[in-house]
């Protein structure tokens, strides 16, 4: 399974520098998180990876830069709530050649149900897309992305619109899917608890790369301070220390 190499990637939009010479590695089969404050260029880096924004520099995917299948889970969809399309319609519309007006082929339906079951969304198959909650839609989009049999799964703020319990379930789900399908996962998040609980590798970004590597070695006070500035106090440092195997002196900390 291929990793990703960002080599000197810069993005300028409307005369403003969004990304400045970003050079970073996403290891093969890792769960890599891109973290940084608002406006750091995290989503722009993903959009460059997807080919949706113009950039200078090089992005290589796979060992030889050959054809790579991507699965994409966007942060949110500007969904037309009145669209009379069901979850099953969405699951098959990118795969089935027979027009949907003639129904869904049994083989496609069974495959879609397998994937929806894997993300605990089988009961949503006949529901209209506009009637899904944020967390439900996120799981359906994840099933849709997995259906691509991706080499690389790209996720933008996967925990947005998901409550704490849902976030925990999502983390478990992603880990089991990654173990089963063996893809490389790259996700943008500003949720440090999600990073420490789930990621194996991190890229700290604030227009340029301020640190990258395994979680325990990278998320030092210096790197986090440089990335997030004075608001570091809001981060869950107990989780980070726990990830590094360090005791925490905080009186209420559950990791001590």
């Amino acid at each position: 399974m291929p990793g990703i190499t960002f080599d000197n990637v810069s993005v300028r939009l409307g005369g403003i520098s969004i990304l400045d010479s970003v050079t970073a590695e996403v290891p093969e089969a890792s769960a890599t998180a891109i973290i940084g404050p608002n406006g750091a260029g995290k989503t722009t880096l993903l959009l460059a990876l997807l080919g949706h924004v113009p950039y200078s520099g090089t992005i290589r995917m796979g060992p030889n830069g050959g054809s790579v299948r991507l699965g994409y889970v966007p942060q949110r969809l500007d969904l037309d709530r009145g669209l009379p399309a069901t979850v099953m319609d969405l699951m098959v519309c990118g795969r089935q050649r027979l027009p949907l007006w003639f129904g869904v082929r049994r083989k496609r339906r069974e495959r879609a149900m397998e994937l929806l079951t894997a993300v605990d969304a089988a009961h949503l198959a006949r529901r209209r897309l506009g009637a899904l909650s944020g967390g439900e839609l996120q799981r359906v989009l994840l099933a849709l992305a997995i259906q691509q049999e991706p080499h690389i799964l790209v996720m933008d703020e996967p925990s947005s619109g998901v409550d704490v319990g849902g976030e925990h379930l999502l983390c478990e789900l992603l880990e089991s899917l990654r173990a089963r399908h063996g893809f490389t996962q790259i996700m943008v998040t500003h949720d440090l608890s999600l990073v420490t609980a789930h990621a194996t590798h991190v890229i700290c970004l604030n227009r340029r790369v301020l640190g990258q590597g395994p979680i325990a070695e990278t998320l030092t006070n210096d790197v986090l301070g440089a990335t997030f500035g004075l608001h570091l106090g809001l981060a869950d440092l107990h989780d980070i220390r726990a990830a590094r195997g360090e005791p925490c002196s905080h009186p209420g900390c559950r990791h001590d």
Partner: protein
Amino acid sequence: MIDLTWLFDLAARLLPFEVMQARFMQQALVALVLLAPMCAAMGVQVVNFRMAFFSDAISHTAFAGVAVGMLAGVDYRLSMVVFGVAVGLGIMALGRRLALSFDTVIGVFFAAVIAFGLAIVSRNRHVARSMQAFLYGDILTIGSDEILLLMGLLVALMVFQAVGYNRMLYLGVSPRLASAHRIRVRAYQYVFAALLSLVVIFSVWAVGVLLVTAMLVVPAAAARNFAHSAAGMFWWALVVGTTSAVAGLILSAQPWANCASGAAIVLCASAWFVVSLLPAILQRRRAD
């Protein structure tokens, strides 16, 4: 030239109303039965992509297209089609490239083609008089040539819908998501823009510039209220569009109505829309 007499005779036999005995009514019926499903099918995507304004802009290119054709001594039907498709593709190309929203790009084209058409029409009174037919449409004057063209367009459009309906639904959900998942978004968008422009221009003959968008949008909007799935929306749009066209044509020719057929067709579709509100309201109540 292919003889379509058998088809017109068949139309008269299937709808044995007195008004259907006139040949021009039979021709109009055949044309509408070809055109209405096209409008309905494309209307589904026009509504999904929120492109009603796009079809409005293309319909208004008819004035400029006709005026240019008349002044240049070219068949105005050809100049309408060429001008309409060129503007449709131009809107799509600029909308994809510029940082402006699609609505703004369409608005600029809309204003430019109307101003261009008016500038030419206002210089020539003869051309100005000819324009009235395009304002209100005149399906009753449609001939066998145009019907053969409509048949060709129907075949092309149904091939596109058969190949692209599922992928176009993906684009309707999110073009970015579709593109990431290896759907050829650009190709589908350009082919859709070209075909939609053709359908709009042909519809101008039937219902006129003022009502073209209604032919596209109203059946699809009613279908949204009736349907529970993407398949349902397609079939409902076809039913609403085609029955409205047939009923509107026959009603408009009744002595008590005696009105423009385009207006009657859109009124029938609007009546369908009113009926469709009932299941929509019931569904919302169940959801609440």
